[in-house]
């Protein structure tokens, strides 16, 4: 299934980002279409996470543009306008980053009530439905300290979903999990992807990438070295770098 014919949701043009002397992104260009599931693959330090974090401007690129639904968000001056955009770009982090001083339910509702002015009762209902969907409705009143890693990450996913985003960014969502919790989180992401949510995923779970992706971007040394369908990347990689990488990560 490819969705490359559908409307462009995110367009990245000549994206550059450096930290001090270190050039992490050296001119990335791509388009992400509505409903598409795009996975970023490549060696650590190659720029995958930085690329992802530029999409919602957690990192400010030095050069280039990020168009979201037609608007160049790197040009946004007013913080409030950027906050509005970020509500439409959900993000899930490696370290979960759930709010430890709030219950699971409050983790989900706080931004809805504060920034979208949704009444508390309505927000609570939406949050309960979401917790139900990821199988942890009984944890609504618990603080994150009482949740397992997998439950925290599922909470983080629905917390982002509650803002009704148009795209979800996943930054190594399973890398900090105990091995036996990886599957429950991947299952939730898979369900999201199957439901038509546009997803951009950085992960080292090769089996998952193969199964879920419409398109894979191989990012190394700050550029998209190669891209294609899972079949093209896994079975017929063009560049030696990709062949070499796959040879090392696939058992």
């Amino acid at each position, binding site marked *: 299934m490819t969705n490359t014919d559908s409307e462009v949701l995110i367009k990245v043009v000549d994206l550059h980002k450096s930290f001090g002397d270190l050039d992490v992104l050296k001119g990335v260009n791509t388009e992400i279409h509505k409903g598409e599931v795009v996975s970023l693959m490549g060696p650590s330090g190659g720029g995958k996470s930085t690329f992802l974090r530029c999409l*919602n401007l*957690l990192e400010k690129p030095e050069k280039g543009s990020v168009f979201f639904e037609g608007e160049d968000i790197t040009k946004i001056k007013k*913080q*409030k306008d950027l*906050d*509005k*955009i*970020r*509500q*439409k*770009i*959900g*993000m899930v*982090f490696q*370290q979960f*980053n*759930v*709010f*430890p*001083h709030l*219950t699971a339910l409050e983790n989900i509702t*706080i*931004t809805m009530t*504060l*920034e979208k002015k949704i009444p508390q009762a309505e927000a609570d209902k939406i949050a309960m439905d979401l917790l139900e969907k990821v199988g942890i409705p009984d944890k609504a009143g618990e*603080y*994150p*300290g*009482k949740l397992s890693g997998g439950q925290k990450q599922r909470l*983080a996913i629905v*917390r*982002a979903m509650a*803002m009704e985003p148009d795209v979800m960014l996943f930054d190594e969502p399973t890398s900090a999990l105990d091995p036996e919790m990886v599957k429950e989180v991947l299952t939730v992401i898979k369900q999201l992807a199957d439901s038509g949510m546009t997803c951009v995923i950085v992960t080292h779970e090769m089996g998952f990438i193969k199964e879920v992706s419409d398109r894979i971007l191989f990012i190394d040394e700050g550029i998209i070295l190669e891209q294609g369908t899972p079949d093209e990347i896994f079975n017929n990689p063009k560049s030696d770098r990709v062949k070499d990488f796959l040879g090392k990560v696939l058992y």
Partner: protein
Amino acid sequence: MGPGIIDVFKEYYPIFLKGAVGTLKFAAIAVGLGSILGTLIGFIHLSKNKVVSGAAGLYSTIIRGTPLLVQMYIAYYFIPMAIPALSFLSKEQCVMMSLILNSSAYVSEIIRGGIASVDIGQTEAARSLGMSAGHTMTRIVLPQALKAILPSLGNEYVSMIKETSLAGSFAMYELTFTKTLLANKYLIWQPLFIIAAIYLVMTVVLSGLIRIFERRLSAGDKH
């Protein structure tokens, strides 16, 4: 040797109590106003503007890096002389000011450290959800930072109780100054032990209260 410690305390306890009250008052004002000023300076120190942030850092480095007694001398003798606009300040207010400024520098570090102790991921998660910078600070970062800040502020109050003893050198009526008052009555050594004992009681009781408070805080700890 003269009369014993207990006899001296029995006879002059009002003087010691008045001194203890003075000490608590000095410490409370110093930490109270110092906390307000220190919070401000702490936030300025966290500012992205390097010049402003650097100035706040320099302030806290200088104050924390020099003895309080020297700062008091400067406030007591030099400031009223050098800055005529401040000559309306009483001698007590000058000493008080140096205590407040001193406390503010320590508090600013407590605030800065407390906020910096909250994982940056918390801020990133909140901002990625589209939460405003203001709400991110007041609803996400500060509530978590308070866990580190409040006990440290309590400890600052305990330290300040001891630091205010220096105000006695400027004839301010606080606990240590009572030794000077009683020296007139040829009581030299007894008051010192009484004074030390009262300081000890105050700091131990206060530390105990802080510990209880801290336990409550961590009982409500949801991590």
